[in-house]
């Protein structure tokens, strides 16, 4: 209809420029939450509390970046749970507790490859078979969890000592996991902004048909996106396994909602498209982690935490819809 052709869209809330960018909105949400936390439970802002929270935030951020890129390509990836669980299980099983650093490193690379393969399977089903992402990733997720259960025999085991100490360790007073997350975040932000591949990734996300008309291999980019996401989940899974030392078998299940919530709190629209901001998703991951610690710190238990997450995700999606002028 000629209507949309003519409409010169104005950005909403002209006076509050911070609210016009996704990063601005996400940062504002974190600041507000920190203020609330500071008043309600001052101890939650102590350096000990923050340092114990940061590794979890970092690991969530890594998985959330994976979810973010899939969502930006107008998909959704529920197999995040399966990949995290499987890689965590395998890293505790394969190298053995006493394994040396090199052998562990090799296995970690192998597990990242496993994550990528799972992602490629997702990508093939979504692109070639043209299944909706939800159905595909639900199916792949179930298979991955099944494999994790079969492999572990239903019993959790202990991660290699080398791995655990490296992951729990700190460098210059800052948890090592944070370095990994920062590296991945910076790499992906740089990738999307200045590299040819990254710019094509953004173009394919914004309008796949137009990208195809310009000769961009749309299918390859979509599959690549799921593969990269799978690799990121695997990294998160390995880090979690090392950090927790004896990870539970259903470790990944929470991360379906957590990663989607981080993307949503980053006020990236769930329909995807060209405008997503990885930075906002990373901030969203920190927001969620701090929030859940705050909720626990205030003496509420896991059940209430889940209810709050539900409210956040629904509220976040609703808010994104209201703030984002480009959503149809």
């Amino acid at each position, binding site marked *: 209809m000629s209507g949309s052709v003519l409409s010169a869209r104005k950005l909403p809330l002209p006076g509050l420029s911070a609210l016009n960018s996704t990063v601005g909105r996400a940062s504002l949400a974190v600041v507000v939450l920190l203020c609330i936390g500071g008043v309600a439970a001052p101890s939650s802002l102590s350096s000990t509390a923050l340092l114990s929270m940061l590794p979890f935030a970092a690991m969530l951020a890594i998985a959330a970046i994976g979810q973010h890129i899939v969502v930006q390509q107008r998909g959704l990836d529920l197999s995040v749970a399966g990949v995290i669980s499987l890689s965590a299980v395998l890293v505790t099983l394969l190298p053995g507790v006493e394994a040396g650093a090199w052998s562990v490193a090799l296995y970690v690379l192998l597990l990242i490859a496993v994550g990528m393969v799972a992602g490629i399977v997702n990508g093939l089903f979504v692109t070639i078979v043209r299944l909706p992402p939800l*159905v595909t990733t639900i199916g792949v997720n179930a298979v991955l969890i*099944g494999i994790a259960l079969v492999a572990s025999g239903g019993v959790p085991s202990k991660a290699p000592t080398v791995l655990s100490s490296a992951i729990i360790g700190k460098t210059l007073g800052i948890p090592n996991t944070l370095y990994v997350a920062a590296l991945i975040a910076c790499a992906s932000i740089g990738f999307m902004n200045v590299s040819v591949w990254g710019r094509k990734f953004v173009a394919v996300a914004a309008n796949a048909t137009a990208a*195809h008309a310009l000769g961009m291999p749309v299918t390859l980019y979509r599959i690549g996106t799921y593969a990269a996401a799978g690799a990121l989940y695997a990294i998160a899974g390995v880090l979690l396994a090392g950090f927790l030392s004896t990870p539970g078998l259903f470790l990944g299940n929470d991360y379906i*909602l957590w990663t989607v919530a981080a993307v949503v709190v980053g006020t990236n629209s769930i329909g995807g498209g060209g405008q997503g901001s990885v930075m906002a998703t990373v901030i969203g991951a920190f927001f969620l982690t701090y929030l859940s610690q705050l909720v626990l710190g205030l003496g509420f238990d896991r*059940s209430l935490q889940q209810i709050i997450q539900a409210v956040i*995700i629904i509220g976040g999606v609703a808010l994104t819809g209201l703030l984002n002028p480009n959503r149809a």
Partner: protein
Amino acid sequence: MNIIASKPPMVAQAGSVSLEPALSLIEVSKAYGEAYALKHATLDFFPGEIHAIIGENGAGKSTLISAVAGVVPRSAGEIRLNGNPIDKDASIDGIRKAGVAVVFQHPALLPDLTVLENLQLVSDEFSGTAGRGKAEKLLAMVATDHLRVELGQRVDTLTLARKHVVEIARALAGDPKVLFLDEPTEPFQAQDVEKLFSVLRQVRSRGVAIIYVSHRLHEMQQIADRISVIRDGEIVDSRPASAFTTKEIVTLIAGRPIDQVFPPKAEQAGATVLAVDNLSGDGFAGISLHVAAGEIVGLTGVEGQGQREFIRALAGLQSRGSGTITLNGAPYGTGVNAARAAGIAFVSDDRHAEGLFSELTIQANVGAGLMKTLARWGLVRGADERDSASAIISDMNVRAEGTQSPILSLSGGNQQKVLVGREIATRPKVLLADEPTKGVDIGARSEIYRKLRAISSDGVGVVVAASDGIELEGLCDRVLVFARGRVVRELAGDEVTDHLITGANLSATGLRETKTEPVEAPVKWSRLLGGDHFPIAVLALLTAAIIFATSRASEFFLTELSIQSMIIFMAILTIVCLAQLCVVITGGIDLSTGPLMGLVVVSASYLLPDSLEPAQLVLWTLLVLAGATLFGLLQGLLIVGLRLPAITATLGTFVGLQGMSLLLRPTPGGSIAMGLADGFSAMFLWVPLAAWLAIGLALLLELVLFRTDFGRRLRAVGSDPDQCQRIGVNAGRMSVISFTLSGFLSGLAGIILAGQVGMGTASAGVDYTLMSITAVVLGGAAVTGGRGSFLATMAGALLIQSTISASSFLQADTALQYCIVGVLTLLAAGSFSLVRHRKAG
């Protein structure tokens, strides 16, 4: 719905032109921000008159229709129907029922429904056997024999011309008083146009006010009693058809004398740049075309004659078969990349779908097309990218704040200038432009024409596909007329006139008058495979095989007790799967079904304790069920009201409900009334009550889905919510109802489950979400909505439950169950998807 004020309606005198207008527009405007799509339009439409509205693409014709039909709310002005004002926010449905019907340019039909169902959606006169006959008569009246349409055909299997036939029939249903037609002849051949005109004359004689919107001048002059010209959103003139000369209309449409719009033509052509010889492909055959430097060649034809496919094949966007293409003597391979690398640039006819990256800036839009020249070591040189964008802005005279402005902040004409500029910036040897001035204002058009002429004189070959005769006449040195995938006429030099182009179109298509369009009868077995009920047979066979194999392996499997328990769990799963399908059929998804069952189990452990009297038990059970239904209703209202994506919203409630259950029952406890278990497992005709309930519900829902208006609407919403909006089916309401149904059915499944579990366990229902989606997919439902069968879904549920029951007898652990369900989902959904896409493709 009362959209008309209380004044009694005028009785129109059939057959004669009454002095009272049937429809009046008074100063009607539609603005999007600063820009007007329709500006102070004032027009009267009289009964028994065919009133043509003519204007270029994007002049505001479609906006006028949308504003009257209530598809978009008008910004200002008054619309009167038979003298009674229509409310600004009157519903589409209300306006239609008051007698305003629209034949949309893009047919407002639901692809997954049959022709008959599409008609039934808009009018109840087509139900029953008598209605069937009525529908057949209506279609026969509208269509010539070679465009015959079967009532039982699904609309997505029809050709564009046949869809238009159904669209016209749909609009005529219910005897409208005012009939709008928006470019109704676009895909029609000469004899179909004639047929339509005779229908319109007949309708006119019944006293209907007909508004005929088109950009085809010759057709309007043939049919119209009165002609109004619209330009840039304004009605610029309105007179009886006979009071216009052709030249006057043409000048009025363009807004200035034609020779001022178009640049002068080429003096002489240079060397051949593009040589196409005997090229065939999907939709065209045996096309030869030589384009010389300095020459602009036009391709035209009635819509769907292969000209579009041909130009897209040259651009590498569509497959091509035999024949050769050479660019400066060198051939290039298939595919977009080969074409672009060889020096072909392409401007798509659909700016929004295939041209713009609408969320990105001007610079990013430009950069996306110039990646090859802007890249060094895999990185984009930002400064060069900015320079290219600024160069295009100044070169094409784009009105924009800067290179970082969002592309959507530009007007349509300026957006198009950016796209044309980007393609020119690739320094092509040949520029292909498909409808390069669609939806572009006259100033921008003129600029685009000049630019095309300028690069042509610089030695670039230019090929333009266009449907507008005036544009072709003004711009092109040569024009090739397509019909049925072949070039039937070539016009050059003085012959390139609107008049001759139109004539060539008509005579060319007229030649083939006797040929009928092929009736696309899908191969029978593939129709069967794609059918809604085909999965039932396969699933039932698989279920039987699993049960048989397990009974051979374990003697305990077929004992009475284990069979009974398996049947009850089958019933539970079936009911929750029915719940899931209710939502999926409307194009949504409900992840909360499982946790809702869990919460019902937990609630039952408090509200339905063992101590209850039977009567109390029934009462409280009903209350719990009402609670679950209420939850479904609220969830639906939330999703529709706040326009949340169903996936994320129900992912939220998926976790939220689990939290609630955990909050109520941190550890399992509380015993649930035995009466619940006994009641549902009570045998009735050798089968537990729960099973009868599940079967009954599945049959009932199936009947509702395929035999009632409500069911049609459910499928319509899933099939295409946008079209639903245009024909007045309230998609939001249907969505809310589907979530409510889902809440009710999940609640029922939860109650039966509670009886089986026996005590409050927070995690009881969670796994059912995955299983319900799997069963729906196994049953062959389209996860994107519109198609599905409750009976097939039940068959899917039976297969899943028998697999699970069997695996526990075969001592396989839960791990394998996960794998089996996952693999089943992927295989089933994958094969259905492949079968359907093969059929569609």
